[in-house]
């Protein structure tokens, strides 16, 4: 009951600060652009494929097209924009005069951290559902091929957001500054995880253009293993969308572990901190 009131309070804040309006406005523009895009060019191409090939050709074309939509760059832009929007939640909560009131209520500090995390994740889940759900309906209605697996991308994108938001929360609690927390996260995770992903791809390939020393290789592997794997999870998302088998669950497991560690640290720090 108290936790529900707290989560509702975060949503009310997002609504009042026009955060929800901004998200849905921005996504509506994206959907409109997509409507024009899909009408003028993409569907014609897909229909040509349909006319020239079998039903399998259409399916393949739709899957390929949808896999572009959930590829790395759109994922980066969507998750990054959501992290920017939600990064002020924790520092705003910690403002003097507000945190005192909150902590004087019969709600544990652990629940406050969880409440914020759940509220931000739900907000992003609804937003991604609106955007990716609309795009899915548009593509499916235009092509006649309803690839339900595409909807898994909503879950995967939200998962990537949740993993990264857990560290945004921790840095927000430590620094009390939304800008600092955002900068650190942007600097830390997207470039490093992308580089580590490339490094890992390199290690797994047979043709190696660059040769790393054993120490550098071990360090790269170490960081790759402990840091969240946004880009690898995005790869898994593409596999889901294209209905391909998932062979490696390690990025999911290690990202979940990273999220658990970040949340535990946030809870530990918040529980011992004087306000």
């Amino acid at each position, binding site marked *: *009951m108290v936790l529900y009131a707290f989560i509702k309070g975060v949503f*009310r804040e997002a609504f009042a600060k026009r955060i929800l309006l901004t998200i849905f406005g921005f996504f509506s523009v994206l959907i409109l652009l997509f409507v024009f895009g899909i009408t003028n060019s993409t569907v014609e191409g897909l229909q040509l494929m349909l006319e020239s090939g079998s039903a399998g050709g259409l399916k393949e074309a739709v899957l390929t097209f949808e896999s572009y939509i959930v590829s790395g760059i759109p994922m980066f832009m969507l998750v990054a924009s959501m992290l920017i929007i939600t990064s002020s939640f924790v520092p705003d909560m910690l403002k*003097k005069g507000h945190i005192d*009131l909150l902590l*004087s209520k*019969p709600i544990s500090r652990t629940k406050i951290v969880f409440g914020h995390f759940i509220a931000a994740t739900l907000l992003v889940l609804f937003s991604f559902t609106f955007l990716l759900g609309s795009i899915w309906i548009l593509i499916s209605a235009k092509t006649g091929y309803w690839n339900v697996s595409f909807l898994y991308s909503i879950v995967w994108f939200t998962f990537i957001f949740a993993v990264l938001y857990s560290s945004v929360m921790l840095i927000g609690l430590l620094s009390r500054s939304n800008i600092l927390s955002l900068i650190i996260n942007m600097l830390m995770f997207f470039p490093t995880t992308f580089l580590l992903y490339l490094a890992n791809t390199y290690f797994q390939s047979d043709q190696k253009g660059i040769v790393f020393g054993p120490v550098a290789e071990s360090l790269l592997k170490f960081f790759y293993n402990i840091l969240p794997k946004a880009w690898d999870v995005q790869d898994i998302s593409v596999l889901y969308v294209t209905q391909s088998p998932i062979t490696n669950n390690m990025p999911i497991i290690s990202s979940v572990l990273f999220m658990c560690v970040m949340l535990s640290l946030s809870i530990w720090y918040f529980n011992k901190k004087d306000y």
Partner: protein
Amino acid sequence: MSVIEINSLTKHYSGKKFSGDKIKALEKVSFNVGNGEIFGLLGPNGAGKTTLVKILLGITFATEGNAMIFDKPVTNVNVKRRVGYLPENHKFPNYLTGEQVIDYFGKLSGLRKSDLDKTTYKYLKMVGMDEWGTTKIKKYSKGMLQRLGLAQAMISNPDLIFLDEPTDGVDPIGRKEIRDVLLDLKSQGKTIFLNSHLLSEIELICDKVAILNKGELIKVGSVDDITSTGNKYIFTTSDLKEDVMNKVLMEYKGTLHGKNEFECNINTVEEVNKIIDYLRSSNVLIHGFNKEKNSLESMFINLIEQKN
């Protein structure tokens, strides 16, 4: 029965980074607050008043010692169901209306919507804000925000209410109304812990006070005990004849302040009555007599100056 028990409460903050210095916010503070009392906490800026209140509410943690509220440690979250709090310089979300603020913090206090529907208006009316309930609080004045804060602190019908500078920014009529609300709460058996700079206000409504200075408790007791100057009585009378003056001076060890006023140190009620009987038998009209008291403000200033 004590509602609040504080035993050797100590709080040290770390000073400059890497210096190892400690700032002593509180040093072995101990006192109790009884049920149904209005308790005032006094002290100059930086005395540790807000730190003490924050420790009692679990917002800040003590370095040493312990504090109990309703016989439970202050770190117990469930204790807060019986506690209301109005912080100094509170910041309610300014996108909410007065009613929404009460609704939000009421729900965080564990109240159901049905309970809030019944009580929101009642408490807004109690603090004179019933006509402003549907207005966004960004349009409120400082005084209105304080009144709303008081309603927020009372919404869960708590047994203990902490108020940090509740009349800050409130006009004199509003201050009187808030005092009346506090006295009404006291009559309902609620305990009120008041932190205020307005000593005259504390003197008017508090049963007991504690004075803090530089983190140390320098005095605790009832307002009467703290402001009392001993057993000095001042009599105001009609013109005193010389023989009466002499007797007052010699027998009752009085000090004259002119023909119409004198003071005596009297230890018992019987002695007071004896003087009255003598004055009346000497045809002296008694206009009044009072046990001399210092104001809380002068006592407070004296105590702080002595300590410094």
